C-alpha cells in the first residue's frame, strides 16, 4: 500500500517536468521575437536588448528553460504584459471562480448520475433503462455553451429570474453571487450527468453479470443491498477514474462556459491572454491547468484502492 503511494507520487515528478517542458517549447514556437511582441513596434533597439537580457533570451535555449523552471519552482510565472501584474496571483484569483463552479457541478452530477446509471443497469432493457440511456445520450450530445445560452434565454431573458450578464464574488454578497453561478453550475451539471450516467450504467452491467453478485443473491441478500454494497464499490471504480478526467476536461474547456455567462474565470483569462498576445499569462495558464490536471489524476489514483484493493497489491 505504502509502496503504491510512493510509486505513484514519484511517477508524478517526471510527468510534471515534461508538461513544463511542453509548455515552454510550445510558447517558443510562436513566430517572432518575444521581446518585440511584448514591447510592440515602437520599441527602440536598446529597450529590446534590455528586455531580452532581462528575460534571459540571450542565453542558450536549454539555459532559458532551466532559468524559467527555476522561476516557476518558486512561484514566479512572470508579469502580465497587459497590466503588469504578477501572473500567479492573477491565476489564483481567477481559478477560484472556475474551480468552485466545476467542482460543485461534478459533485452534483455524480450524485444524480451514479444512482441513475445503476438503476438503468439493474433493469437493463426495461422502459426505465431506455429512458435513462436516451436522456443521457441526449445530454451528452448538447454542447455546453449552447445549453448555457438556452438557459440564459429562458431563465434570464424570458422569465427574468436570473441576471444575464455579470459576476459578483461570494465575499461581496453571497446571495447575489449565487444568482450568477446557478446557471453555469446547472449547465455543467446537466452535461456531465450524460457522461457519468452512461459510464455508471456500463460499469454496473459489467459487474452485475459476475458470479459474486449471484453469490450475494444466493446468500439471501436483498436487491437493494446487492446494488449498494456489492455492485457499487466495484462499478464505481471506473467511474471514479472518469471523474478525474471530467474534472480536467471541464477545467481545460471552461472558457466557453465563462464566455457564455461572462464570468471572470481562468478560461477567460487564458483566451483574453491569447487575444492580447499576453504570453506570460498564456504560458502561466497552460502550465497551471495542466499541472492541476496531473494532480487531480494523482489524487484519483491514490484513492482508487478504496474501491478496488487489488490495485495497490499489483
Amino acid at each position, binding site marked *: 500500500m505504502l509502496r503504491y503511494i510512493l510509486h505513484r507520487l514519484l511517477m508524478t515528478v517526471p510527468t510534471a517536468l515534461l508538461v513544463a517542458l511542453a509548455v515552454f517549447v510550445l510558447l517558443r514556437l510562436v513566430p517572432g521575437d518575444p521581446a518585440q511582441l511584448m514591447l510592440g513596434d515602437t520599441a527602440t533597439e536598446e529597450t529590446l536588448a534590455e528586455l531580452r537580457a532581462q528575460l534571459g533570451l540571450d542565453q542558450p535555449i536549454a539555459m532559458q528553460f532551466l532559468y524559467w523552471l527555476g522561476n516557476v519552482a518558486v512561484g514566479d510565472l512572470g508579469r502580465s504584459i497587459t497590466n503588469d501584474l504578477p501572473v500567479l496571483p492573477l491565476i489564483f484569483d481567477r481559478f477560484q471562480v472556475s474551480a468552485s463552479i466545476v467542482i460543485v457541478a461534478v459533485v452534483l452530477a455524480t450524485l444524480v448520475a451514479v444512482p441513475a446509471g445503476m438503476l438503468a443497469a439493474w433493469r437493463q432493457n426495461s422502459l426505465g433503462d431506455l429512458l435513462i440511456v436516451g436522456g443521457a445520450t441526449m445530454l451528452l450530445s448538447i454542447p455546453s455553451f449552447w445549453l448555457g445560452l438556452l438557459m440564459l434565454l429562458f431563465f434570464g431573458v424570458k422569465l427574468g429570474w436570473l441576471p444575464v450578464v455579470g459576476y459578483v464574488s461570494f465575499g461581496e454578497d453571497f446571495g447575489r453571487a449565487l444568482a450568477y453561478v446557478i446557471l453555469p453550475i446547472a449547465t455543467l451539471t446537466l452535461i456531465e450527468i450524460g457522461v457519468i450516467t452512461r459510464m455508471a450504467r456500463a460499469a454496473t452491467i459489467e459487474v452485475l453479470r459476475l458470479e459474486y453478485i449471484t453469490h450475494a443473491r444466493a446468500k439471501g441478500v436483498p436487491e437493494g443491498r446487492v446494488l449498494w454494497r456489492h455492485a457499487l464499490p466495484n462499478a464505481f471504480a471506473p467511474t471514479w477514474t472518469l471523474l478525474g478526467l471530467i474534472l480536467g476536461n471541464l477545467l481545460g474547456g471552461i472558457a466557453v462556459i465563462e464566455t457564455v455567462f461572462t464570468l471572470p474565470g481562468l478560461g477567460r483569462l487564458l*483566451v483574453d491572454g491569447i487575444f492580447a498576445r499576453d504570453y506570460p499569462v498564456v504560458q502561466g495558464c497552460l502550465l497551471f491547468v495542466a499541472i492541476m490536471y496531473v494532480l487531480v489524476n494523482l489524487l484519483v489514483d491514490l484513492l482508487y484502492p478504496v474501491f478496488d484493493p487489488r490495485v495497490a497489491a499489483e
Partner: protein
Amino acid sequence: MRVRANAVIGGTLIGLLVAVSATATFWTPYDPLRINLRARLRPPTDLFWLGTDEFGRDVVSRLMAGAATSALVALLTVAAAVILGVVIGVLAGFVRGWLDRVLMAVNDTLLAFPGILLALGLMAVIGPNKWGIILALGLAYSPSVVRVVRATVLSVREREYIEASRVIGNSEVYTMARHVLPNCVAPIVVLATSMFGWVVLAESALSFLGLGVPPPAPTWGNMLSAARPYLDQAPWLSIAPGLCIALTLLGINLLGDALRDKLDPRMGAA
C-alpha cells in the same frame, strides 16, 4: 433491436449532415456572406426560413455553409489524428524497448493537457484559421489514438494465433501485417467515430471563443458567438446553430453506440 434503432437514427442524422454539406458546396438559398443592412435581425419568415443575423445575412444559408465547413474540418482532423496515431501507436507497440518508452513519455505528456487546452495553446501559436484548427485539433487528439492503437497491438499480439503464426515460421513483420493489424481495425473505427463528434464539438467551441475559423466565413460555433449579444432581441440566432451541433453529436453518439454494441454485444440487448 436497440442497436438497429441507434444505427438507423444515427445514420439518418449523419447522412443528412453529409447531404446538406455536399449541397452547400454548390447551392445555398442566398449567398451566406452577402450583407444586407436593411434586413438585419429579421425573425423567421417564409422569405428567410430561420431569419437573418445582425448583418442581414440569411441564417439557413449560413447554417448550410457552416455544415460544410464543420464536416470538412472534422473529417480532415480525424484523418490526421488517426494516421498520426496509428503510425506512432503501431511503431511503439511493435518495436517496444526504448523507442516505445520515449514515444509513450511524449504521448503521456500531451495527454496531460486536458480537453481542448492543448488545442487552445496551439491556436495561440498558429493563429485562428481553418488549417490551423485542423493541425491543432489533429495534434491534440492523436495521443488518444496512439494509446488505443498501442494497447490493442499489445493485446492482440498476446493471442495464441499470433504464436501460431510464429510457429509456422512466419517473420515478425509478416505476422504483424497479416494477423495483428487487421485485428486492430475494429477498435480504431469505433474511436474514429466518436472522435468525429469530439472534433465537431471542439471546433465549434474554438470558433465560439473566436479562436476557430475566422468571420465572415460561417461556422456553427462563430454564429453562436455572434448571436450572444442579441439574445433578447433575436433569440432564433442562438437556437438554430446549437441545434445543428446537437443533432450532429447525437447522430455520432448513436452511431458510435451501435458500432460498439455490434463489436461488443454484451452491452446491448444481449
